[in-house]
């Protein structure tokens, strides 16, 4: 129901202030990225004298951000593909199939959601080292898959639970196998959820610093966010250049958000209501 009169302002004003507080850091970063170093040091909060993309170009050209972007794209696409495949299969199994230990396995998956990455850092590092996966794209893809799969399973199970059993029974009557039900019924029906979960996982993978820093040991294999974090150290006295790097890293995330905001919201709220 739409608010009227005073009630509308009570809602609108705080919302506008919240939006401003959210947007301001981005505008500040954009403004800083447009400044020269001297301009920034002399007055951090003034508007840039001239609009120039020199810092963004410098950050891109001198700091290997192009290579880092490529790495981020590869591991994000790889991890999201694997996450969607495994997550949808598991979600289907947990929600629609009956097998021994189902409830316990699901609880284990939910429990994995509660384990902070910091707790498993050391064994994680050792296993990747022993299996030769350290400092490889595949290693990071598997690392992201392991880390974000419980979340994916939770959301996909929640979504698939809403599909009436009659749909699957009808497919069975028509002679479909379990794999056939998954491929022909669950995957097409789950497309909205897969899109939402895929976008959220893509944002998680793209924005991650800690796991990537741990897995990718050499500079050439770094992902974009690690590269930008390193920029902060390398150019600690050149904040405009750092801001340029931040913008490069943030642009794909902002683009994803602008294009897929409805799916992101659906993904975040999935499972909160039933029916």
């Amino acid at each position: 129901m739409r608010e009227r009169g005073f009630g509308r302002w009570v809602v609108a004003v705080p919302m506008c202030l919240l939006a401003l507080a959210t947007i301001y850091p981005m505008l500040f970063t954009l403004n800083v990225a447009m400044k020269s170093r001297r301009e920034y040091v002399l007055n951090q909060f003034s508007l840039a004298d001239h609009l120039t993309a020199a810092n963004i170009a410098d950050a891109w050209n001198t700091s290997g951000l192009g290579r880092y972007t490529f790495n981020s794209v590869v591991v994000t696409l790889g991890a999201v593909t694997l996450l969607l495949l495994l997550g949808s299969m598991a979600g289907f199994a947990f929600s629609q199939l009956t097998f021994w230990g189902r409830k316990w396995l699901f609880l284990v998956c939910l429990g994995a959601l509660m384990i902070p990455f910091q707790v498993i850092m050391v064994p994680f590092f050792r296993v990747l080292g022993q299996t030769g996966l350290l400092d490889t794209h595949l290693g990071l893809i598997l690392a992201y898959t392991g880390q974000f799969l419980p979340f994916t399973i939770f959301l996909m199970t929640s979504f698939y639970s809403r599909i009436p059993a009659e749909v699957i029974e009808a497919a069975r009557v028509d002679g479909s196998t379990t794999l056939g039900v998954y491929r022909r019924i669950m995957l097409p029906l789950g497309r909205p959820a897969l899109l939402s979960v895929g976008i959220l996982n893509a944002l998680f993978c793209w924005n991650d610093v800690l796991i990537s820093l741990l897995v990718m040991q050499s500079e050439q294999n770094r992902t974009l966010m690690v590269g930008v974090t390193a920029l902060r150290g390398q150019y600690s006295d050149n904040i405009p250049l750092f801001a340029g790097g931040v913008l490069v890293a943030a642009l794909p995330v902002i683009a994803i958000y602008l294009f897929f905001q409805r799916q992101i919201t659906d993904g975040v709220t999935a499972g909160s209501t039933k029916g």
Partner: protein
Amino acid sequence: MSTASTRTPKRRWVAAALVSALAGATCLATAACGAAAPQSQAGGGTAEQAQKLVVWDWHSGDASTKAYYDKAKSDFEAKHPGVQVDFVAQPYDQYYTLLGTAIQAGKGPDIAMFNGGAQMRERATSLLPLDDKTADLKDRLVGWDAFKDAGTTYAVPITLQGFPFYYNKAVYKKAGLDPETPPKTLAELQTDCAAIKKSGNVCFNLGNKEGIGIEFFLSGFAPGVFSPAQYDAWLAGKRDWKSPEVKQIFDLWKQTNDDGWYNKGVNSTAMFNDQFTMFSGGKGGNVIGLISDTAHWKSFDEFLGPDLGVYQAPILNPANVSKTFLPAEGGIGYGVMKWTKSPDLAVDLIKSLAGTDAEKQFFEKAGAIAADKTIDTSTVDVKAAGQIVSWLPDSKPLLHTALSAKTLDLMHRLSQQLISGDVTVDAALTQLAASDK
């Protein structure tokens, strides 16, 4: 949750296969907890891998240190052709987390960069003792104490670290003060601060968001408070947190804030690099800065030029102190990790990193005061740099680096609470004394 209405053995098998697939992937992280088999050493087992040295630091990606690393690398490669050297610049924010993981896993770089003091001592058990391998460096380099643990040397100093007081002569002039006469006593400092404040500037720039402002304050002002015997006792581990001198410093920390010496929002201002950016931008009369890899004479000189001045800690306690000094010690250094396959090669690489020609590049291009006392610093035409170098022979180590990481963490938190008024000086000192046992 609904389930399939009919069940056959085939369906159960397919379901089990699906779940097994996900379980395998899910447990990549969790199963790792139980999969920690005995760790083989890093560096690789083949001859080819043994001829490669990996160095972790937080500087080799800086444009300003490129000449230093290029020189060190070419020097090493001339001595050891065919040995590959990889410098990996890690983000400083995450550096010790990453190194800690590598140390616990027993796998990582052959050589690692360390801050002197607690950061290195906490990790000394993972480093090779270097005393018998670095005798030829002992006389040429200074700052070794910061890289010793229980009398054993674990890293080679590359730069020095110290806390001089930098000041802006233009701000002093605007306040009607003599720009060539920085304060020598607490009374003079108070008078100057009052004048600077009256002229519309802040007396000191400070950022204590990370809580480390207190480190600079304690180590920066201590030479003007502690008697030489008290200073040495502190460094030797005999620390009396309830002494009038320690209380005087912590009282001053709170009092100076209450008196409005600093910029607004101290606890929400980052020291690196907002505090130093403010000073470079001419928005403060003084700052306690560094001589090592950042916030040093060169970075300030770039913006302040001839207005940049530097002075030693003022005398706050004339009963104890007749002459102050620059607190300084080893800043950053390189240590050899225990698991390296090529310890001799690693030591040789560190010797190249500590070479005089390379160190000269670090000083001139990156602005850090090098640990090599034989380099010619007269080539740099910045008065502040020359003054700092001339003070080094009389310097003594910093007080805060003698503390454990645990006590330093506590001190960071307390420094913020003191400023916000959530804890008294006496209560803070009681907590610090208990932590520092």
